[in-house]
């Protein structure tokens, strides 16, 4: 990807002016005549670039500024300051031309017409985006293969389940085969099967059409399955931008070993082992928990203790039927970043271009 980025965002900020409501009757009366405004910095000085064909996960806690960013990238909101170039357009200034080249899905809303059959909405979108009947048929065929739309194409949108509606919305966003796809929480509220449908579909689209995808989500499985790169935003500021693997490597603190004892007779040996662990040199680097009569879990600091060592010790102490070694879940890492831990790696601030 040596060519120019498909999306470039520079010093992007969006401030909302809201007014503080006073409480009570008297406060309400005062509100009628005088309002105290305050500025909410929804997005503050954000910079990033996305190359063609990338799938980027954009995460952050509620109210962090994810949706506001997406809404600026899609031309819905006008930035307070900063620049956006996307597919050669300035989104809010060339809205009508620009939106022809993007697809947008907001998980919480639908772009389909509520009271009419899904297929009618698709026909309308075909007209809006001026898609030829042949392309339309070919794409519907592909969408149907992955998303299985056929069964409810003739149902009004209001009667669809959330999962069915999301599948339709995705198809609708991609009917004109846009080079860029923005997804704002595409898997929110969906069951496992529906989530899987959506993820598979995004993979197919990305592979087949080189579609560039930016998605926000609260479900980190989405990210782990789809995105190599993540951006983390909180309180309007970008905290991290880089490969997910790097983030994990840097911030992964603990691992856990789960083991199941062969039988109940291991109990005294386990107690002895537990005592020996207490004397373990690295203080607080290790913790043993009993999950039930036979199952135990040891959570340990992966930088201080090697899992191989630990396993050897366990095997020497007790008779074990089964083992499971796991990394700290990515949720834990993200939680720590939200709580204030420095994700490190730094955010590559793009050099000011002439």
């Amino acid at each position, binding site marked *: 990807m040596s060519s120019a980025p498909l999306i470039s965002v520079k010093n992007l900020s969006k401030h909302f002016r809201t007014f503080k409501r006073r409480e009570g009757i008297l406060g309400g009366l005062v509100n009628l005549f005088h309002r105290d405004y305050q500025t909410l910095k929804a997005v503050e000085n954000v910079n990033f670039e996305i190359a063609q064909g990338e799938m980027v996960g954009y995460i952050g806690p509620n109210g962090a500024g994810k949706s506001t960013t997406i809404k600026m990238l*899609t031309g819905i909101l006008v930035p307070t300051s900063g620049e956006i170039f996307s597919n050669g357009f300035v989104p809010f200034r060339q809205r009508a031309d620009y939106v*022809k*080249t993007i697809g947008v899905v907001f998980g*919480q*809303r639908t772009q389909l017409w509520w009271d009419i059959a899904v297929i009618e909405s698709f026909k309308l979108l075909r007209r809006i985006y001026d898609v030829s009947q042949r392309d339309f048929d070919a794409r519907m065929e592909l969408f149907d293969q992955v998303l299985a739309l056929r069964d409810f194409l003739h149902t009004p949108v209001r009667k669809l389940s959330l999962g069915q509606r999301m599948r339709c919305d995705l198809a609708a966003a991609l009917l004109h085969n846009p080079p860029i796809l923005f997804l704002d929480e595409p898997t929110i509220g969906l069951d496992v099967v529906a989530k899987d449908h959506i993820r598979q579909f995004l993979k197919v689209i990305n592979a087949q059409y080189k579609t560039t995808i930016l998605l*926000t989500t609260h479900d980190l499985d989405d990210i782990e399955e789809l995105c190599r790169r993540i951006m983390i935003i909180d309180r309007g500021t970008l905290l991290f931008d880089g490969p997910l693997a790097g983030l994990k490597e840097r911030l992964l603190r603990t691992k856990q070993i789960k083991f199941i004892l062969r039988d109940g007779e291991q109990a005294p040996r386990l107690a002895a082992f537990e005592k020996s662990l207490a004397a373990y040199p690295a203080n607080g680097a290790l913790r043993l928990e009993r999950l039930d009569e036979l199952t135990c879990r040891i959570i340990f600091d992966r930088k201080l203790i090697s899992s191989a060592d630990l396993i050897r010790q366990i095997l020497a102490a007790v008779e074990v039927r089964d083992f499971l070694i796991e990394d700290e879940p990515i949720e834990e890492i993200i939680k720590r970043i939200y709580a204030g831990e420095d994700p490190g790696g730094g955010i590559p601030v793009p050099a000011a271009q002439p």
Partner: protein
Amino acid sequence: MTTATHLLAAQKTPLRATLATYGEFARIGFVNILAFRLRYYTGILTYLINVTVYYFIWRAVFSQSAAPIAGFALPQILTYVSVGWILRSFYWNTIDQEMAHEVIEGKIAMDLIKPVSVQAMWLSRAMGESAFRLILLTAPVAVVIWLLFPVLAPASAVHFLLFFLGAVGSFFLMGAINFMIGVCAIPLKSILALIRAKFWLIELLSGLLIPLQFFPRPLQLLSSALPFEHIAYTPLRIYLGLLTPAQSLRVIALQYAWVVALLGLGHLWWRRATRKITIHGG
């Protein structure tokens, strides 16, 4: 490179495709109104009830003496009211209410991500609904009214043609006004009171309830400087032959001038309002 072809696709679409798009919106409007059967039947009933009410009111007004009031004889005023409601079933639309609803639900964002003029989109949809009403509501309502009430025929074939032209103007005038009211929902969020105020203002100043001749002189003068009387009063006067064809053409020209002005104003107002959209949440 794929990007290049994608960029090519973003070039201006030809007029034919544009018309096809808005034609499709009109079709959606048509189909949409079909979705609710009950709404359709109650619509017919509502219009019949309204005409009946005004029929008896005017009968009562003229019961003491049959002398014309403000230039209207009883058969004329009854025709005015009946044709007025038939006309209303055609020009009526709820763009403002639907837009207000969309703003509150945040769906206005979904309009902005489509490569269309939002104003033209709303007008096309309303046109589809009006076409629906013309065929399936206005026509049957007209037949029933014709059978039940002593409605006069149009003054002449030319007058009827001009009346039709004026009715189309009424639709666009109403659409342009409703769109502007709808846009107010973007900065104001709740515009229920505004919609209600507009409703009564237009019921009154369009001349639908009472011909404007019945109004005091200063109010008539004020009204002639406003667009509202061209919604009902203008086409209805043409229907009754109260204006000569030449006079009719002149007021229709004025009516369409208002349409253009209000559509332009609505477009600017929309542009201004969308620059300040605030959609919170995330």
